[in-house]
């Protein structure tokens, strides 16, 4: 029964979509068959895979960079009230600079290069991670920190064995919403200055109002993320929570 839930849920999502498409009967909401057919064609042509690979590369690099820097900054700010007060406003500023602005500035300053693209994504994502982890590290268990101090864990051991496991839910949140956010930003980044990638391709479809194409590419990306969920995030989740009763 348990094992059937996921397939059933996916199936029902498809049926919902199919039903809606049948009901609307408009080229603006193609049915899943059309979309998956298109997906197959595009994949067979190699085009889709090329763009997907390019985007995933950018996504990977900027995700890792943003997570590492953001976690470090967030933890520091959460643990040191002075630092927090100092950077608090900066964080608000960078959190609320429109993606468009950073993207344009990055491209204009560094040219239409890969580095500029990745930098733009990182600048957009980093404050999000920092805010999430700051919130997490503000609420650490004092008792355990005191224990670590008494037993002279030192900085690194405390971070790894005491602080990190408590931050874990926040890291997961940052990672999940982070992948989604980066994906949203990367689309704009690619739209404004790259000659390949999913964003570039999606925008072309948009100009031609090819909803089937748009959905086919979206589905491709969603499948990749779902696979990451199943093969990386969820097993990690289970591992990190193995101690819970």
């Amino acid at each position, binding site marked *: 029964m348990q094992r059937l839930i996921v397939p059933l849920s996916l199936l029902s999502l498809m049926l919902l979509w199919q039903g809606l498409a049948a009901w609307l009967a408009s080229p*603006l909401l193609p049915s899943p068959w059309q979309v998956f057919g298109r997906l197959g064609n595009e994949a067979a042509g190699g085009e889709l895979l090329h763009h997907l690979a390019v985007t995933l590369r950018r996504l990977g690099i900027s995700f890792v960079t943003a997570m590492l820097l953001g976690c470090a900054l967030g933890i520091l700010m959460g643990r040191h009230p002075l630092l927090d007060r100092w950077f608090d406003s900066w964080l608000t500023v960078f959190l609320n600079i429109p993606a468009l602005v950073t993207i*344009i500035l990055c*491209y*204009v*300053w*560094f*040219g*239409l*290069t890969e580095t500029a693209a990745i930098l733009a994504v990182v600048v957009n994502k980093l404050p999000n991670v920092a805010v999430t982890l700051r919130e997490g590290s503000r609420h650490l268990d004092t008792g355990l920190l005191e224990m670590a101090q008494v037993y002279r864990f030192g900085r690194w051991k405390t971070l790894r064995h005491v602080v990190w496991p408590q931050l874990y839910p926040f890291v997961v949140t940052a990672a999940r919403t982070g992948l989604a956010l980066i994906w949203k930003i990367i689309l704009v980044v*690619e*739209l*404004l*200055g790259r*000659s390949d990638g999913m*964003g*570039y*391709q999606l*925008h*072309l479809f*948009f*100009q*031609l*109002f090819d909803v089937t194409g748009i959905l086919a590419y979206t589905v491709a990306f969603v499948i990749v993320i779902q696979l990451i969920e199943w093969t990386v995030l969820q097993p990690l989740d289970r591992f990190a929570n193995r101690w819970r009763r």
Partner: protein
Amino acid sequence: GSRDITVGALAYGTFNWELTVIEREGLDRRQGFRLKIRKLANPQAGRIGLQGGSVDLIVTNWLWVARQRSGGYDFTAVPYSLTHGALIVPPKSPIHTLADLKGKRIGVAGSPLYENWILLKTLARRQHGLDLEQDARPVFGAPPLLNQQLRQGRLDALLNYWHYAARLEAAGYRRLLDGGDLLTRLGITPPVPTLSYVFRERWAADRRDTVTAFLRAAYGAKDAICGDRRVWRYVAPLTGSTDPKIQATLRQRYCQGRLRHWGAPERKAAARLYALLHEAGGDALTGPAAALPRGTFWADFVLPR
């Protein structure tokens, strides 16, 4: 200077047709330069690339050039095409003249700074005393989205860029008037282009031969597209459509828009257009300069024969 030119072009734009022909037919080698193409998905991407020096040449509106020149940049323009956006209505629409636009929902591509929108407003006011901002209901939005809205009947008329308009025309929609008509009716003759090849003046000064060679090749490509069936056969898929009717309409409009003359009268007409837009649209569209900034059009350009 070097003989390389990096060109930024929209993947499904007509400029890309030309570049493809230049490449396939080896026009660049024949004219003695090396072409590098950067495909882009968005018109703004070209401008960003040009600003940042990632591309040398793009196709865009010369009004932008004029505005940037007021801001201290040395961009300059060379006429690209006379095709203009058009005002499209559904096949059975009761709208036949501008006066009929009263109270109607008019879609406008992009923003209120679209030059054809400003011209349309000016003409409506002059001819019919209509203030379209007040007397009609303009809706601004992304061009493809607006096309869709018109098809769904959520708009009564649509002022859109020419290649979007062409798609509607191919589907049986009626062209009420286009940007060229607007100019003529506002007394701006001979016809002037709005789309231009744009590059940096100083960059061009260092490689005048290369730029001239490129422009010669580009104009050669235009003729090939319009005159050579063999060439059209491989250009057609670049329209992004498989519908032969749409392809044909796009080609027809493109070829009609080829520039025949470029001389003093045209430059003067352009200056008048600038002045008119400056008056009607204010600083926002054209920049602060009251008259067309000198050098907006590249002085060294002569229409290739």
